[in-house]
Structures are given as structure tokens and as C-alpha cells.
């Protein structure tokens, strides 16, 4: 189970406190996600990464505004395990190859924002800004294949229509992607109840489930969720 998405308008003190809390409660990974970094054409502020790395004893991933190998190197040297790229990979797919070559596939997560369009799925970009969010016209399954070929070591599929509405993960879309995805696949978008987590592991065969609002708002406590999932025979760290 993955942790949490943060937006950087929260002050760092809050982030450190929340990070320590989620870590103590048993989150298996935290994703720090600056959704405004790409639309505003700026990078994440790196200074907090080291402060977070000092207190966390679980893996964490930094997403947002990583456009170059040098950006990624700075983030990894600050103490992050993984870097996640989304819009910059769409603009320059060769970035995925360059990152995988330099740091190894295990460091390189590709985030994909995707929606059902007609009877297929399309990749969206700049989804952090409602005014600029738009379809890339890329078919999601093609993009998933391509980034794997380029060296992505993990894919986080954010099913946009489900995101934030807590009606459950988009099982149909996740199943379609799972069938062609040979690297770890993380479901994102839609978690509202503990049952949603159990269902996405059982029916979409994902390797992890990411959620934010249900944890931030306190609707689901991580220890309760883990107890529930273990009772449902999902293999997960106690």
C-alpha cells in the first residue's frame, strides 16, 4: 500500500509531521507529489527532501518538475528512493531512457493520468491545472508499452474520473493496463472505503494502491486498513 500525495501549498512543518505520522502508522511508501510543478514550469523545492529523508525509514518517491537527469540526481542524492515523471516524459519520452540508463529502472516511476475516451483510454497532461489539463491524444495502452520499453521500472496509473470522488478504483481500466504491464503497477484515484482497496488488489492484480484524501481526512486509518486487507488475504506488511 502506498501512502499519500502531498501538495506543496502545505507548509513543510505539516509535511514532516504528516510524513512521520503515516510512517509510524505503517504506510509502506510515501509519494510527495507537487502537482503544480509542471504547469508552472518550475521545479520542486528540494530543501525539504533531506528533512523528510532524515525522519522516514520507509521508501519515498518525489514527483513533480523533474525534467532532466540533473534534476533527478539532485532529488535522489537528497535521500529519495524514486523519482516519478509525468508531463516531462510526455514532452520528451527520451527522458525515461536517460533516467533509467543513469539510475536504473528501479528508480524511475512514470505517472500516467488517464481517462476513458470512447471505448479506449487516453493520456492527459498538465492535470494539476484545470485550465491547461488536456488529452494528449496518446492511447494509454500504447504509452504504457512505450515507457516500459524505454526503461520505466514502475507505473502509477491515475484514473482521473475516479480521482477524489471515492467511488472505487477504475477496475476496468486498471485490468486493461495490468494485462500489458510487466513492471509494478500502482493504482491511483478513487479509494473511498477499505473494500475498494481489497477489490483493486483482488480484481485488478495491482502491486500497490495509492490514496490521499481518505488518509488525510482521517476516513481510513492505515492500521485498520492493513488489518482488514490481511484478513482478506492480501499479502501486505503488518
Amino acid at each position, binding site marked *: 500500500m502506498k501512502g499519500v500525495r502531498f501538495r506543496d501549498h502545505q507548509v513543510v512543518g505539516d509535511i514532516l509531521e504528516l510524513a512521520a505520522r503515516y510512517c509510524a502508522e505503517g504506510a*509502506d511508501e510515501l509519494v510527495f507529489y507537487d502537482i503544480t510543478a509542471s504547469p508552472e514550469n518550475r521545479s520542486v523545492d528540494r530543501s525539504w527532501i533531506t528533512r523528510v529523508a*532524515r525522519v522516514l*525509514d520507509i521508501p519515498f518517491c518525489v514527483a513533480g518538475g523533474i525534467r532532466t537527469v540533473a534534476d533527478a540526481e539532485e532529488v*535522489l542524492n537528497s535521500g529519495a528512493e524514486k523519482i516519478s515523471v509525468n508531463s516531462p516524459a510526455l514532452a520528451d519520452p527520451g527522458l525515461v531512457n536517460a533516467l533509467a540508463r543513469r539510475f*536504473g529502472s528501479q528508480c524511475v516511476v512514470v505517472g500516467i493520468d488517464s481517462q476513458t475516451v470512447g471505448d479506449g483510454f487516453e493520456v492527459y497532461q498538465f492535470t494539476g491545472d484545470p485550465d491547461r489539463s488536456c488529452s494528449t491524444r496518446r492511447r494509454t495502452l500504447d504509452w504504457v508499452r512505450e515507457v516500459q520499453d524505454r526503461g520505466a521500472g514502475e507505473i502509477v496509473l491515475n484514473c482521473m474520473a475516479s480521482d477524489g470522488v471515492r467511488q472505487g478504483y477504475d477496475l476496468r481500466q486498471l485490468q486493461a493496463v495490468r494485462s500489458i504491464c510487466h513492471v*509494478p503497477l500502482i493504482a491511483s484515484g478513487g479509494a473511498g472505503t477499505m473494500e475498494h482497496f481489497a477489490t483493486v488488489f483482488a480484481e485488478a492484480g495491482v502491486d500497490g494502491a495509492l490514496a490521499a484524501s481518505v488518509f488525510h481526512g482521517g476516513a481510513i486509518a492505515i492500521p485498520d486498513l492493513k488489518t482488514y486487507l490481511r484478513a482478506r488475504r492480501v*499479502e501486505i506488511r503488518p
Partner: protein
Amino acid sequence: MTDVAIIANGGANIASLRFALDRLGVSSRLTADADDLRRAPRVILPGVGAAADAMERLHSLGLASVIPTLTQPVLGICLGMQLLFECSEEGDTECLGILPARVTRFPDRHGYPVPHMGWNQVVPRPDSALARGLGDDAYVYFVHSYAAPVGPWTDAVTDYGGEFSALVRHANFHGAQFHPERSSRAGQRILANFLALA
């Protein structure tokens, strides 16, 4: 005196290891100097990246012949553990030759994506020094595409579509395929056990 010398073999992401040692109240520093390594009470060989690059770097630093002669407790982590073996399928690389086996790539198996990334249960041998006090339901964090087979050197196993060595040991040389510095309380216990070795 520095408690732990971390071999500076050029991999990214030494920070999380150093922070984990800080949390245990242990001082550490990076070094690539042979005399420094010989004098250190503890040595850690980290490693993220490819086996061939890492061995090339150890050779160019003059450390490939030094590491096998160290007599204090040595801990290889992830790729650093794999380098303790005779050779690796990754880039068909000759390694340090402390442990007599070949590290191989995970086969493609349905339901077991490669790289293997995530938390898995680790099952220690009863006499494992590094796993002392770990309990029987310990999960640790793995990130790897290659793995060492189970053999006399195995101190703990993990099952990922088949068993592989999660902890290894030979004389003063120890290795962890997972990342103790990112494995929560279980990882902290394993690092503390390493630091407590006589």
C-alpha cells in the same frame, strides 16, 4: 573515531543509509581509501546501479582486491551484497568472489513483475546473527532485478515466485538483498544487529 566506513563506490542515494545510521546514533562517512577501510570498525558496501559499473569503479579505486581481505564486520547492501559473490549475470560481471555462487536475473514469471520492488516477508535461519530478534512476521523493502541463490551462505530467504537469499553470511562478510535503511523497524533491527557484531 568513525563507527562505519561506507565505501564510496559512486552510486546515488547514500543519503538514506547515512540517515538510518544517524538515527541509530552511529557516525559514518564515505571513503574510497584502502587504509581508511582497513582501520574502520565496520564497513558497508552499498550499491545502486549496475554490477559491471560498480565493479569497474571498485577496480579503478584499487578496492576490488582490498575488500576480500577485510577482517572487521562488512555489510553489503542490495547490489553491494551481490558483489560479494563470484559473478553476476548482470553484464556477465566477475565480482569479488567471497561467496561461491552466481547472481542471476529473475526469470519472467506471471504475477511476479521485474524489478521486484516492494515489501516481502523475510524468513531467517534460526542462527542468523543479523536477524536476531526479528520475529516471525518481518517484512523488508526490496528493489532488485537480480538475486542470489539459496546455499550454505544463506542467512534468510524470501519467496518471490521462488526462494532467493535475502540475507547472506560468510565469516565476517554479511549481505542484505533488501534495503534495511528503508525497511522500517525490521530494517533498523538488522542494522543494529550488524553494528553490535563482535
